[in-house]
């Protein structure tokens, strides 16, 4: 039945991300796909998932997707709003957040992230927005989920800049740096889901979205991507998920 539904690759990514969010978790949410995914989760299987936006809106319950992390909708629907130093010190750094959702311009095989520059830092080819909350989200939330579109310019052999750490150089290198959180547990793309190998921490393709081939994913990856021996197929979006997601988006004043 689901096969007969039409959906975009962004919708597939968003639904796959939403499915990863458990009920009763505190989720640090960025704008764009992470926000859509978290709100979809809240509207479906995880009604008690608590959405925390970087702007200090705790427990926001937007009925439309905000354009920025500080839209009025977020403050008005939040349980309460706190100043920024408390967001970063009392909540994020204190390790109270279960899941952090991050985007990226580049990721490498150990799920390290670049959102700073393409090219050199001093004379960049493309200057990107930079770090924002990501470096500390990457180290202080109990678990990180990364969402980005997969292509060889994004899934690179070597980052142009290390903005936020994933599993560093793999193995226990993250722990050796004194970081005690799990780090990235999944990278969700329009093609499938990559997860770190339990030992080496190298990203491995564990789930293929319906209709996608392993070759497509390998072609979209600049390194020699490892494939899980028990490769699964992702559950496609169902009609309820698509309906709710589209309704959220249709109510978004700021949608492009």
């Amino acid at each position, binding site marked *: 039945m689901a096969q007969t539904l039409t959906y975009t690759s962004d919708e597939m990514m968003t639904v796959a991300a939403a499915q990863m969010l458990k009920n009763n978790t505190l989720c640090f949410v960025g704008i764009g796909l992470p926000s859509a995914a978290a709100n979809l989760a809240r509207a479906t299987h995880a009604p008690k998932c608590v959405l925390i936006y970087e702007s200090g809106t705790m427990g926001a319950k937007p009925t439309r997707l905000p354009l*920025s992390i*500080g839209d009025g909708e977020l403050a008005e629907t939040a349980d309460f709003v706190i100043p920024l130093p408390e967001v970063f010190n009392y909540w994020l750094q204190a390790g109270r957040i279960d899941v952090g959702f991050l985007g990226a311009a580049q990721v490498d095989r150990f799920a390290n992230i670049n959102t700073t520059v393409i090219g050199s830092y001093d004379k960049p080819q493309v200057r990107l927005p*930079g770090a924002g*909350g990501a470096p500390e989200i990457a180290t202080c939330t109990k678990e990180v989920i990364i969402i980005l579109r997969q292509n060889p310019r994004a899934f690179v052999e070597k980052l142009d800049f290390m*903005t936020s750490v994933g599993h560093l150089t793999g193995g226990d290198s993250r722990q050796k740096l004194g970081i005690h959180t799990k780090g990235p547990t999944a990278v969700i793309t329009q093609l499938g889901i990559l997860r770190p190998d339990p030992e080496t921490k190298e990203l491995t393709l564990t789930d293929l979205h319906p209709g996608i081939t392993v070759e497509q994913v390998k072609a979209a990856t600049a390194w020699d991507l490892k494939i899980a021996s028990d490769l699964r197929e992702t559950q496609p979006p169902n009609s309820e998920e698509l309906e709710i997601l589209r309704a959220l988006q249709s109510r978004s004043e700021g949608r492009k």
Partner: protein
Amino acid sequence: MAEFLALSEAVRSLINDGDKVALEGFTHLIPFAAGHEIIRQQKRDLTLIRMTPDLIYDQLIGMGCVRKLIFSWGGNPGVGSLYRFRDAIENGWPRPLEIEEHSHAGLANAYVAGASNLPFAILRGYSGTDLPKYNSRIATVECPFTGEKLAAVPAVNPDVSIIHAQQADKAGNVMIWGIVGIQKEAILAARRSIITVEEVVEKLEIRPGAVILPSWVVTAIAHVPGGSFPSYAQDYTVRNNRFYQDWENISKERETFLAWMQEHIMSEAESISVVGS
């Protein structure tokens, strides 16, 4: 004690060329009108500080007011690039832009240190990132009790901090509510301050979640309704998301940017802050 001034007078008398200036407001309550007045008065060689430069710093940078930028996230929220910021860093136009780059947690704590009269702040931050390689203002300190290594950032103490607020009372006390961001710390960290307000009331009725800035820590207040457009002032104005999206095309090219600034900012009086609304 706060003095009520016209915005143009406040900017003229309190901001000098070469000053370190912070215009704060985290998505909410961004002091656009004050930024436009700085552009109109052609202040130069400023060091601007702001967690999220946003469109207002894109405009200040593109108009040549800025020598150095201290920041933590330089994008158009939910839209994409800040093209004038990029053009300055990538191509040095209209002048080279020196940058000092932090994470949000680092810069927020730098304001806290500034507000607290401490020379630096400590945080669990920047672990494993390349930022400290390019920013010598990110250092390490060791805990004297546990031996753990922590990141340290120097305090931010602007010469002038500028914010937009919902209300001031006639005695010069100021109140903001909704998303309150880092504004309290920005004002307390600064040597001088300018606050534009939506409304001047007889007496403040303190709201839930409000931040109060007493008259004792405010230098100048200017009554500028709509002064945060296209950002917003909760319970007064709404964020103009359309303008943020339109900014992409206005700002992508130098010519269209300059033409827009000339038409909408340079040739107008203070009320320009509500253009496009």
